[in-house]
């Protein structure tokens, strides 16, 4: 079963359009949603959660349309938004009391284990938390009711490298259960490259690509050549290029490039930057 299916999703407002997005996230997998500010990542996530209404298209979460019984579906979803919006006067202990009256499967033991693991104080008010600590509480809440799908919008922002690594391990561990899945958006592409099975690039409301990470890394490479050599290649094979006085670097489809040319491996971050620049 797919954890998430998005078909033809479109949403226009205030001069921005999210155009005809199609995504499939299978269970047991992690999908990274990559895009610059304003690319449409948060809009996509809010549409998935039915916080805003799309103009057209459909969204299916764990086999159920998100326009039907979304309340019940949300019992199976753990969410961290880019801003964890607990009222400033609440403590982690009070959040627990609220959440055990919110989720049917809220698990106090799991929550306490996460508070301990992430070093979150129980009686300090939320307003006295650092941004990283707020995120950690948001993550603990999102994972303590036995969700099947985690939706994380910039959830690793504000975390120091050590905690970020720990949290990424938690997400990877989460998908060891094949009925679980994670959709995560982040600016920190290296984080996504580390844990994601699928990568989706969003740029100015358009989905540039959505593919298995390993396929992308196999399929694409960085070609180092001259401008003349590049002009001789099939333009369809070139997904982005950067010209300088020293030559040209281009993201190319390896199988469409004649053998013998100088192609080096590409990282997901390089692939995204080149493609985003090309799409401008």
């Amino acid at each position, binding site marked *: 079963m797919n954890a998430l299916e998005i078909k033809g999703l479109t949403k226009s*407002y205030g001069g921005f359009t999210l155009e005809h997005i199609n995504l499939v996230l299978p269970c047991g997998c992690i999908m990274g949603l990559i895009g610059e500010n304003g690319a449409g990542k948060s809009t996509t996530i*809010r549409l998935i*959660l*039915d*916080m*805003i*209404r799309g103009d057209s298209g459909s969204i299916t979460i764990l086999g159920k349309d998100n326009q039907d019984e979304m*309340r*019940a579906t*949300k*019992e199976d*979803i753990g*969410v*961290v*938004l880019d*801003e*964890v*919006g*607990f*009222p*400033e*006067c*609440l403590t982690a202990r*009070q959040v627990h*009391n*609220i*959440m*055990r*009256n*919110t*989720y049917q499967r809220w698990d106090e033991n799991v929550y306490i284990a996460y508070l301990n693991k992430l070093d979150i104080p129980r009686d300090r008010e*939320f307003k006295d938390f650092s941004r990283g600590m707020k995120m950690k509480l948001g993550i603990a809440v*999102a994972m303590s009711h036995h969700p099947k799908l985690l939706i994380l919008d910039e959830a690793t922002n504000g975390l120091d490298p050590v905690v970020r690594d720990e949290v990424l391990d938690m997400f990877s561990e989460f998908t060891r259960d094949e009925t679980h899945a994670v959709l995560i958006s982040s600016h920190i592409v290296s984080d996504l490259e580390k844990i994601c099975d699928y990568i989706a690039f969003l740029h100015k409301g358009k989905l540039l690509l959505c593919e298995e990470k390993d396929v992308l890394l196999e399929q694409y490479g960085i070609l180092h050549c001259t401008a003349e050599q590049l002009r001789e290649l099939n333009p369809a094979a070139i997904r982005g290029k950067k010209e300088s006085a020293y030559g040209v670097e281009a993201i190319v489809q390896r199988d469409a490039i004649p053998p013998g040319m100088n192609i080096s491996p590409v990282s997901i971050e390089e692939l995204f930057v080149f493609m985003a620049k090309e799409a401008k």
Partner: protein
Amino acid sequence: MKGLILKDFYMAMKYCRVYLAITIIFAIASIYGNSTFFLFYPVLMAGIIPVNLISYDEKSKWNVYVGAFPYTHREFVSVKYIVTLIFLGIGIGLIAIVQAIHMFISGDVDWNSYFTILSILPALGLIPPCILLPTVFKFGVEKGRIVYFAVILAVCGTFGALGALSLDINTGQLLSNIGSWLIPAALGLGGLLLVASWNLSTYLYQRREI
């Protein structure tokens, strides 16, 4: 919905203690004074508290974050009306106690006026929040606050004027002249206003994109 009510309870205990203290002071003041303003102030406060809670929700972005949890728009709206009714109940309960004390201290025991006042209070107390909440749910607290202040000024002005008039007019006498039909009519109107406002707020909030 219990979780949302509990959250608002925690917030009210933190942010609305001042209102509670002022309400108690004004209620005690109404024992010794004869001002209608002091009498109606606790009820007026009940309408302020849920709007303040929404303001804090917006400040912390809880109004967005709540979309992550298994609650419907109707539940989010309903909680604010339930909170209104709870605080209105507390306010009216307080008035009931202090007015009973006032009657016994002054020796002017008039149960007819007493119950007439208590019967009309829910309808009067519901007017400000029932006007404010749909506006706040439609436009947010910042824009809704303009309407909010206009309503508060109008209500305070009215009660202030009534308070000034009470130097010459005995409230008890005034109320005893009111026909018995007015009490169920006021309660009915209050109920109608509540249902209409509740549904309008839900309708408006479901269509609002935050």
